[in-house]
């Protein structure tokens, strides 16, 4: 039997996320690993450089908690819910401290992740060309992106963006086995390329399933186990965001976060309540039920829209 990589969120973060790490934070608005994000915050990690196509409240919380020095991404906000206030405070007013951001676009970030996953050193694209995204850089200087004439003679320039291979990354999926084979379905977002690009991956999942369940539908595996160093079982681990087939977005909870995070004090209150005062995800769920009632908790649960079966036989 291959070795089990199953551990708690606490163990995984202690073991694999160091201060100053280059950290890929997975999730594109949905299926975000809040279980791991909160653990990183509780463990007071410092000096992280974050890589993400687009970042939401989880990155906002990491910034607010002082864990982050630098971000390479294309978007930091909460989409329809509103802006990322901690991110704005950090950039506009250095609260809790200055955060630098290296701005790309969603497609160029994905192209960089894909390139890193496949050992392709850089990618020529048309995005960013002519824009101030190409003209300005935070700390990468000449290595943010380069304009180069098409060597195949189209006559046009392209923007070369460098591949990304972050030291470690984390994300949330519906299910994984104990060797780390990860399956995801429904909306995929930045997966699979963002996670494949990482040298090591920590995965949190709704359920740990047997290797046999994985093998029943291997096209759904978005990350092969060899990259995974830790598997954390965390039902409800993406709350307040949605996880297809498990639960929907918790809109009132998100609105509460946006409202409170408008001020540093309000944000601290929210974090004290939902992050610092609980020691793990189980306590978080219990607290949720105690605060909002069992009915609201159960109402988050996904209804049935089952896929049909296909035959893998031969």
């Amino acid at each position: 039997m291959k070795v089990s990589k199953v551990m708690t969120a606490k163990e995984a973060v202690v073991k694999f996320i160091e201060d100053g790490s280059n950290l890929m934070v997975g999730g594109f608005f949905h299926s975000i690993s809040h279980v791991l994000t909160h653990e990183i915050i509780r463990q007071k990690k410092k000096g992280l450089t974050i890589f993400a196509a687009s970042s939401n409240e989880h990155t906002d919380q990491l910034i607010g908690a002082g864990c982050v020095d630098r971000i390479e991404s294309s978007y930091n906000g909460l989409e329809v819910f509103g802006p990322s206030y901690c991110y704005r405070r950090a950039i506009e007013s250095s609260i809790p401290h200055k955060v630098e951001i290296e701005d790309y676009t969603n497609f160029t970030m994905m192209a960089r992740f894909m390139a890193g996953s496949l050992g392709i050193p850089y990618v020529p694209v048309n995005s960013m060309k002519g824009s101030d995204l190409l003209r300005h850089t935070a700390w990468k200087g000449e290595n943010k992106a380069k304009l180069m004439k098409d060597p195949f003679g189209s006559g046009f320039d392209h923007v070369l963006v460098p591949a990304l291979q972050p030291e470690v990354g984390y994300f949330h999926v519906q299910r994984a086995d104990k060797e780390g084979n990860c399956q995801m379905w429904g909306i995929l977002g930045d997966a699979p390329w963002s996670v494949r690009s990482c040298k090591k991956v920590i995965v949190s999942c709704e359920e740990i399933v047997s290797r046999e369940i994985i093998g029943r539908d291997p096209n759904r595996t978005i990350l092969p186990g060899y990259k995974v160093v830790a598997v954390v079982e965390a039902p409800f681990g993406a709350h307040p965001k949605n996880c297809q087939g498990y639960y929907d977005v918790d809109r009132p909870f998100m609105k509460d976060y946006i409202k409170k995070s408008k001020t540093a004090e309000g944000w601290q209150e929210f974090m004290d309540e939902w992050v610092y005062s609980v020691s793990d995800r189980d306590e978080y769920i219990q607290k949720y039920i105690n605060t909002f009632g069992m009915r609201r908790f159960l109402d988050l649960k996904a209804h049935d829209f089952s896929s049909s079966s296909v035959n893998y036989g031969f």
Partner: protein
Amino acid sequence: MKHKYTNFTQQEMMAVAAAREIKDGEIVIIGTGLPLLAAFLAQKTTAPNIITLYESGAYDCKPVRTPSSVVDSVLAPGSAQTASLLEGLGYVHAGDIDVGFLGGAQIDKHGNLNTQVIGDYRAPKVRFPGSGGSNDIGVGCKRTIVMMAHLKQRFPEKVDFITTPGFFNGGKERETYGFVGGGPSVVISNMGLLRFDAETREMYLASYHPGVSIEQIKENTGWDLKVAKDVHETEPPDPEVIRILRDECDPDGLYLKKE
């Protein structure tokens, strides 16, 4: 009954105007908010065969409720393909998508958009979320439809930061870049419809929405806005269209504010 749907809002006028810009059979990449309602409205009225794409990779979606996000779980079941962000914007970058919707903090005379900063990039007064897929859509879609609130500070002569190129400094400048996408074809504000001169690529007023004057629009624009010779009132929405918009496209009032 009917008069209930004659009191359309500025927001509703924008959604209706945007729906009119979509031709039947087109593939349209949409975000949340008004663009989503515009696409839904087009589907239910003049353009039943459009295909909707979301940058999350969901293609030809059949959501059973109004999606509240480009990754709303409702987008996957029933869609013809649920792939990933790489495909969602990859199809755009390859030049396969007809229409994209854009917005931003600022738009200038030549249709350049800013979703980055107000003030100095390194020490901004206000920091916005960033491009996301905006730049990719702006360079890749055959044409884009921009939707903006019409305020002087949001329509400056030059944006503080070009996140998403329109026509740069105008004229043929955009063509020197070899983009697969053609740039903005229209700006739909809460006050009027603005288009771009075919030669100079300067934005001009094509029509003013009902209840808004040309003077008001010029006052809320950061440069001396030119006005089309045939400038006219934007055709007001048919009450039946407003009924569909409110009751079928956004029955839960997710995006449309009540008067």
